């Protein structure tokens, strides 16, 4: 057992940070936070801070990565060196590569890439502070940044995790739950269709636990979706 594992994760129905099992952490989203990017967003979510910058559609470098029938959607997820407990050495590591890949695949289904053949849509996600759930925070931010860039989308993509801690299924794990819990299930959904565009899992779930966690993550995504929409309304609402 890992050093530092708490004896109990839930006491009197409350989690270590005081939340109910089905309660997500406070989340705040702002669109259009950067000048140079075509679109951008900043998400603060229970200690996580992510800034996403979107450029495109634009020329593809290197050229051979271009696709003749659609834009390539490229996500670059990066943790700032000071965003984690042990300083992270700058540069791409295996974890960032995987998260960049699954984030691209989570967003691809909603972006009308076919409108922009031979171009690139690049999204750069910077994690400025990490507190469990950075990939969901990053997807949530990237999604708003693409919308803010004016690129046509079928829907926004919110993301949220559920997991198992001390035998209980809870939503949106915090740092200590993530470190010492038994399972984690980050998900991204397309709210208008209910389809799943990101799903990863590690830990231990029985089939029925999985179903419960799945539903909880889905509900979490729906709550995040509202905050995403509000962020866009805050910026663009006055124009309507």
């Amino acid at each position, binding site marked *: 057992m890992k*050093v530092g594992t708490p004896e109990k994760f839930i006491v009197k129905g409350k989690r270590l940070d005081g939340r109910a099992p089905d309660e997500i952490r406070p989340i705040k989203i702002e669109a259009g936070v950067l000048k140079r990017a075509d679109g951008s967003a900043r998400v603060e979510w229970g200690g996580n801070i992510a800034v996403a910058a979107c450029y495109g559609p634009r020329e593809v470098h290197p050229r051979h990565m271009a696709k003749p029938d659609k834009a390539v959607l490229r996500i670059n997820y990066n943790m700032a060196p000071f965003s984690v407990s042990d300083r992270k050495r700058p540069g791409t590591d295996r974890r960032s590569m995987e998260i960049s890949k699954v984030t691209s695949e989570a967003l691809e289904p909603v972006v009308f890439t076919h409108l922009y053949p031979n171009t690139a849509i690049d999204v750069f996600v910077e994690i400025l502070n990490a507190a469990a759930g950075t990939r969901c925070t990053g997807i949530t931010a990237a999604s708003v940044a693409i919308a803010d860039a004016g690129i046509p989308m079928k829907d926004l993509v919110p993301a949220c995790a559920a997991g198992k801690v001390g035998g209980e299924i809870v939503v949106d794990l915090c740092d200590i739950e993530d470190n010492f819990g038994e399972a984690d299930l980050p998900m991204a959904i397309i709210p208008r269709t*209910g*389809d799943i565009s990101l799903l990863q899992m590690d830990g231990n779930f029985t089939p029925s636990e999985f*179903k419960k966690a799945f539903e909880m993550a889905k509900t979490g995504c729906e709550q995040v979706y509202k905050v995403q929409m509000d962020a866009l309304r805050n910026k663009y609402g006055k124009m309507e």
Partner: protein
Amino acid sequence: MEHVVAEIRRDHIANIIRDGKRVDGRGFDDYRPITIETDIGHKADGSALVKMGDTQVMAGIKLLLGQPFSDMPNSGVLTTNAELRPGASPTFEAGPPKPPTVEIARVVDRGIRESGAIDVDKLCITEGELCWIVFVDMHVLDYSGNLFDAGMLSSMAALLDTRLPKVEDGKIIYGEKTNNKLPIANKPVETTFAKIGSGVVLDPNLDEERVMDARLTVATDKSGDMCAMQKGGEGTFTPDEIFETVERGAKKAKELQKLLKD
């Protein structure tokens, strides 16, 4: 032109699947023929070559001595790597692993780690000071689809084949193996499904993998619990597709586990 041909090929494969069939005649839940050969070469501490249809993945285990992580002073260390060797496909290049390769290594790693396949506490030799470091290296020799399942199977077969090297004065004596096995406590396997149009099929071959909309990998342990999952690809799954696939995966996992000998 290339993408037009790709679309025609996609439609063809999807149409066959819509009719309940597959390009190579298999059922939706059939694996291609699988063989597992172990003890390939004597330098690895354990090894296995898995053939899954035309796909060939060799896994080799090397055991090194090192220091436990400071937050787990009583545990050994597991490191999982994959390499798509440039000879395995006309499109692979020499160089550091690219995202799809990294994804395979990381998903296999999670399956092994989260299922407790290796009882890492038994790999500690001196608390906080000396432990075994287990290197699992997957070496993809021939790429014809579904590296996740072949990779996991070769890794587990190689771990089961492993004998600890002899140690004297805290150093490994190379060339002398003991009869001691690794403390294997679980047998996770991965089952990967491809969604192509209206159907979801197990163990996509190369043609299917090229045209699939989305992929779902489910790692199941010996008790039938899930220990890792990974959705891939640019498409989506409905919640029902996911629940059904997870169930189908758990069933096939039992078959794969039978192939893994203690």
